[in-house]
């Protein structure tokens, strides 16, 4: 690394470089970069396979191996820092059939999932899906739950899924796990979870005009009055108990 002459600077910054292999080709990249930035540093430009850059969209799955290690490693390129000598490739998309259904006609029974995704029963519990999941979702466990008709458990276990599709890429039973889990979460949310009855009451109150007066008052204020009202508003203390109520109870 180059060192700037002493008299021109008070600090030296050394950038440690490490070799990585992108689709088999060697590149020297700064050791502190994420895989995504390292690939860009190496000269590639993303036009797809790169979404939120924040670890939630599931577009930038990376599969990699390390020298002398038979294990397959995965990560999200935007979240995973490079490692020396890693061999990697991006899997931005993996084909997996998604069943077509009219959601309004479903009722949330196990048989509906079995009919839409009969391949569910091809699972042999090899666990490759769980091992490859970059979000550490227990994929095989939610598939096991669905085989026994437990849609609720499947919805809960699969909650962190970001639909990257790596599970489907490794499945010897050719299941599209992440699509099946999405159906399970939809059914659970729509049909198996108790309805929030208080929401109905609240909507009725709003429609009956209960808050119209307050809203009209706020709309009528100038900026200064609005700011003052906001700053002086009564807030629920952080340590308030279950029985806390505001002084002004006119909207309760």
């Amino acid at each position, binding site marked *: 690394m180059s060192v700037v002459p002493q008299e021109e600077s008070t600090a030296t910054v050394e950038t440690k470089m490490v070799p990585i292999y992108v689709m088999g080709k060697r590149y020297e990249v700064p050791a502190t970069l994420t895989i995504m930035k390292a690939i860009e540093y190496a000269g590639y430009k993303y036009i797809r396979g790169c979404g939120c850059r924040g670890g939630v969209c599931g577009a930038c799955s990376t599969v990699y191996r390390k020298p002398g290690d038979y294990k397959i490693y995965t990560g999200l390129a935007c979240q995973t820092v490079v490692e020396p000598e890693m061999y990697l490739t991006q899997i931005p998309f993996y084909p997996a059939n998604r069943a077509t259904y009219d959601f309004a006609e479903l009722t949330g029974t*196990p048989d509906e999932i079995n009919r839409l995704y009969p391949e569910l029963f091809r*699972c*042999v*519990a*090899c*666990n490759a899906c*769980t*091992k490859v999941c970059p979000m550490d979702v227990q994929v*095989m*466990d939610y*598939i*096991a739950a669905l*085989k*026994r*008709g*437990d849609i609720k458990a499947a919805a809960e276990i699969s909650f962190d899924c970001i639909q990257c599709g790596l599970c489907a890429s490794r499945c*010897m039973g050719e299941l599209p796990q992440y699509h099946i889990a999405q159906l399970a979460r939809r059914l659970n949310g729509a049909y198996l979870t108790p309805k929030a009855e208080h929401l109905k009451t609240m909507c009725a109150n709003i429609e009956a005009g209960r808050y119209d007066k307050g809203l009209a008052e706020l709309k009528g204020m100038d900026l200064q009055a609005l700011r003052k009202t906001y700053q002086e508003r009564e807030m629920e203390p952080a340590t308030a108990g279950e029985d806390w109520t505001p002084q002004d109870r006119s909207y309760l």
Partner: protein
Amino acid sequence: MKIAYYPGCTLKTKGKSLETSALACMTALGIEFEELVRWNCCGAVYSLADDDLIHVVAPVRDLVRVQQAGHDKVITLCSMCYNTLARANELMRTDEEKRKTINDFMDEEPDYTGGVEVLHFLDFLRDEVGWDRVKEKVTRPLAGLKVAPYYGCTLLRPKEIAIDRVDKPEVMHDFLQALGAEAVDFPGAIQCCGAYQVLGNPEAALKVSHDILSDATAHGAEALALTCPLCDYNMSKRQDKMLQQYEGAKEVPIYYFTQLMAIAMGIPIEECHFELNRESSVQLLKAKNLVAG
């Protein structure tokens, strides 16, 4: 210490009457049990191909889960699950080379060497509870009910995992007698119901199921008790087809063995989920004054 319980997938859906009735009986008997928190489908059938190890992974993983939960025994209710788990266990105990292959493949789990004992509820009742204790809990003996005990294949074959003598089993006979019923032994008790042939060759499966039921009634049985959701499917759910197709075929009420146990122990009838049985099943119990009519 609580004993581990492995339900199996079918017992959570189409065969739930087997589970609900059995668990109510276990509670009545004072057996402390806990369902495994993590379990997967056992595979439902043990692969007959000697080198088809991938299909042994699922049952072995379940046995690993039993150990991880701190147990060395597991009770099953479905005889298919019993068979699959017990045979996988036997393989892991006896075949060093295949054990290594499977453990190497499942490298994310602790190595398994066959340390769990796989039990069926029937041999658990016989060996660890005892018929005397069962009899003590019987409040409504099934007096006058002539029931044929039906084993099928999976509790008795192969002999390495059989819960009783392969050629002349007695456990279910003794079980029914303990409940106060009259056990009607018949040669068809150890014949195959047709099993998964119902998919590829449904006529052949119907024929063997019909032969078994005819054999049972010919020996004087008025009902049949079984342990397996697939046998139940072939002999109960497909019985209407038999009645249409075979001249002289008689209606035969079919019960899970645990449903009869629940009735004999005075457990509320709702736990039996008789809505999943043939209508004749409840009718017979009513005729014998064993349930309120």
